[in-house]
């Protein structure tokens, strides 16, 4: 078949528990958790005081002192991941026509870390409504407009094709990669750096989830705070991080002898048009996204060997998602392993979708399903195989990853082993 297809040839990861794909995959397959008391700021006045933080030193990861000083934390994550992904791919970008090389970076809350810090400095800790621009940092405009994330990755890598940030809340990490895949498939680009980054462990973002009681209030046992699908879960645990991929057109990746982790065979997004934070219990829009993604991948429900769940660990999500998996996969839903890596690395908002794609690509590579950590007793209304506690070897040819977020966005992506006849 002649249609253009997009494959993953390089992966970069900054995640709680470790930088790089090796540390990431070892954490996930060991079933270890990276959730801990918040150390990035003094969270003692907050309801939820646990998070999955990254131990990240920008200069040690190869950024310049200037980048370390002026870029928002999430922009730094994205830049480091892009470097890793390019190195991993072995692609010599000077061989790519620059206008056929693009960048899409997802982010839910953009440079909110930098924006909050700078606001405090300019406003006398929030006391002055009217702030003066005279003492403002020169790069403050880059914090305001998160297209700066994609721009920075493009400048560093030499991409001169379509460059954009995609910001659809908690599905940004799937949608940004889906957008990049569409550009390759339609023939606009040959190579994309695509992924997502968020660094939301900041007072304002912790407070905004506190105020709606979406995050867990259980602060005494941080390692076990993120419990998707468990009867005793109390809400999600905030995380941070990034993942960026080198995506290439399949034929040219083959020709240069690239290592191919997998093909992004299908993607779809739908909206529930129901509520900004609420979900319809039947999961019909997420199910529709999954069905369309499978249909674009020309894959039957029974071709799905693993479902990487959104699995945020809120009661509403876990039940909504369980219903959606059943609606999309039918009887096969009961036979397929379903797990949530948020149990280990928390929910990094827009970034998590790309971190989950990375987990899926590595699962295809290693033929191992990462577990749902901390799952002791499943919610009786969640009756699928959630791969509790321990990773599992399995034959994996097709995997489905799901995302669901504020604003009603519901996204699904299908990855498959490279070279599958479609």
């Amino acid at each position, binding site marked *: 078949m002649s249609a253009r297809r997009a494959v993953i040839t390089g992966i970069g990861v900054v995640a709680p528990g470790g930088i790089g794909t090796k540390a990431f995959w070892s954490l996930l397959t060991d079933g270890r958790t990276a959730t801990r008391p918040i150390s990035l700021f003094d969270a003692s006045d907050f309801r939820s005081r646990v998070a999955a933080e990254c131990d990240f030193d920008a200069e040690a990861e190869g950024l310049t002192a200037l980048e370390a000083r002026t870029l928002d934390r999430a922009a730094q994550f994205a830049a480091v991941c892009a470097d890793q992904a390019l190195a991993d791919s072995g692609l010599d970008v000077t061989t790519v026509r620059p206008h056929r090389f693009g960048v899409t970076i997802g982010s839910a809350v953009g440079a909110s870390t930098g924006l909050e810090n700078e606001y405090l400095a300019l406003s006398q800790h929030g006391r002055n409504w009217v*702030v003066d621009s005279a003492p403002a940092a020169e790069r403050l405009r880059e914090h305001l*407009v998160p297209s700066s994330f994609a721009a920075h990755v493009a400048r560093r890598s030499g991409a001169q094709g379509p*460059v954009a940030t995609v910001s659809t809340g908690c599905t940004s990490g799937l949608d940004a990669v889906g957008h990049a895949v569409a550009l390759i498939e339609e023939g606009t680009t040959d190579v994309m750096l695509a992924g997502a980054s968020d660094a939301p462990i900041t007072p304002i973002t912790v407070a905004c989830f506190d105020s709606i009681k979406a995050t867990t209030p259980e602060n005494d046992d941080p390692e076990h705070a993120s419990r998707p699908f468990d009867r005793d879960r109390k809400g999600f645990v905030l995380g941070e991080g990034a993942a960026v991929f080198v995506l290439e057109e399949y034929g040219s990746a083959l020709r240069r002898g690239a290592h191919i982790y997998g093909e992004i065979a299908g993607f779809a997004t739908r909206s529930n048009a129901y509520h900004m934070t609420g979900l319809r219990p039947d999961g019909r829009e997420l199910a*529709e996204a999954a069905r369309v993604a499978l249909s674009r991948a020309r894959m039957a429900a029974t071709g799905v060997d693993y479902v990487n769940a959104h699995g945020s660990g809120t009661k509403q999500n876990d039940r909504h998602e369980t219903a959606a998996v059943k609606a999309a996969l039918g009887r096969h839903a009961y036979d397929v392993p379903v797990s949530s890596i948020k149990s280990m690395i928390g929910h990094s908002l827009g970034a998590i979708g790309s971190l989950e794609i990375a987990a899926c690509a590595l699962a295809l590579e290693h033929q191992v399903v990462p577990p749902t950590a901390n799952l002791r007793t499943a919610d009786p209304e969640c009756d699928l195989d959630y791969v509790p506690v321990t990773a599992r070897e399995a034959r994996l040819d097709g995997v489905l990853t799901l995302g669901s977020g504020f604003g009603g966005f519901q996204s699904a992506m299908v990855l498959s082993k490279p070279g599958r006849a479609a």
Partner: protein
Amino acid sequence: MSTTVSESTVQAGSGCPEQPAAEALITGIGMLAPNGAHTEEIWANVLAGRTGIRPVSRFRPKGPVRLAGEVADDAFLQAVPSRLRAQTDRWTQMAVAASDAALEDAGLADAGTRPYDPFDMAVITASSSGGNEFGQRELSRLWTEGPQRVSVYQSIAWFYAATTGQLSIRHGMQGPCGVVVADQAGGLDALAQARRVLRSGTGLVLTGGMEAPLSPYALTCLDSDGTVSHATDPARAYLPFHEGATGWVPGEGGAILVVEESTAARSRAVPHVYGRLAGHAATFDSPSAPPGSGLLAAAGAALEDAGVEPSRVDVVFADAAGVRSQDEAEIRVLTELFGPRGVPVTAPKTMTGRLNAGGGPLDVALAVLAMRDGVIPPTVLPAEPAPTHPLDLVTGRPRTAAIRTALVLARGAGGFNSAVVLTQAY
């Protein structure tokens, strides 16, 4: 120095041959601008050269930015139910009003009569900076009153996806929704994404961009890179392509458009077909490439995508940065593509300020109104440019002209370039 990138190095996003050649038709317009509350008012004021740039009135600025294009609250608030007002920033409220107007204009105000399944309708907007005023208020509250005082709506009002999410709920649109951020270029990229999802089977997309960057903190952020005008005379504050250029004036507003797949649109006997989104391309500036080469590549590829020779372009809605070096780069691009003074060029944004994510969609809306009425709206400058000016800039009075093809350009801070080609649809 002439630019060296040939437009042919960018392949147009024209799709695989096997994809159906669905056309994206603009069938409804909703707009808000500093110089008007609705489409016909804005259009009349733009043709008359009436500016909406004035001293900032929503607060008393301490910093050096004194002028902006503010949208009056009356222009949009009544369209927003009180419950929704509490949950949303001004930016989303403006988009609600404009989206209502766009659907009404398309003859689709009544949700019950829309001939589309909810999964076949989508919302794709651009946002540059999210819910600024709401976000600043909650940041202040957090740090002066404590985390318990932060609004329960902060998580859904501040983030960049708020507008698309609220519009999808308000209008019951469940198709492939999206949010694109590419600063001022993002508004055009959102329209391109709308066309992309129409090609993959969606019937209708509500698309465009809106921006409200005039909270004190957001304005401070914008001013930080040294390109915003500090002038105090509204008539001399934003002078693109002019020797007196001192930067750009930020403004509020934008446009939300109804874009429909052509077969579906024609089968429902749409009230208007304003024009066709015929071509698009986006590029990013390499720091080492000659200034303007990225914009030239984008414009050339968008024309190629549309299958239009430069000689057939009847008007260019310029990016018009108002910053000398960027204006010079754009002049070189237009000269290279069209020859010296080879095409009428206009920048009605001299009357609204630059609207970031809203700017491109507003220019697209004005361009299709120009097609409808056979008239090019003017660029407002203090004096007629000299006859030796390198651009055929339409200034002073509107210019009568048959317009079948228009090119709209936008550049975003950091190196983003986007170009859209619009053609008349019959």
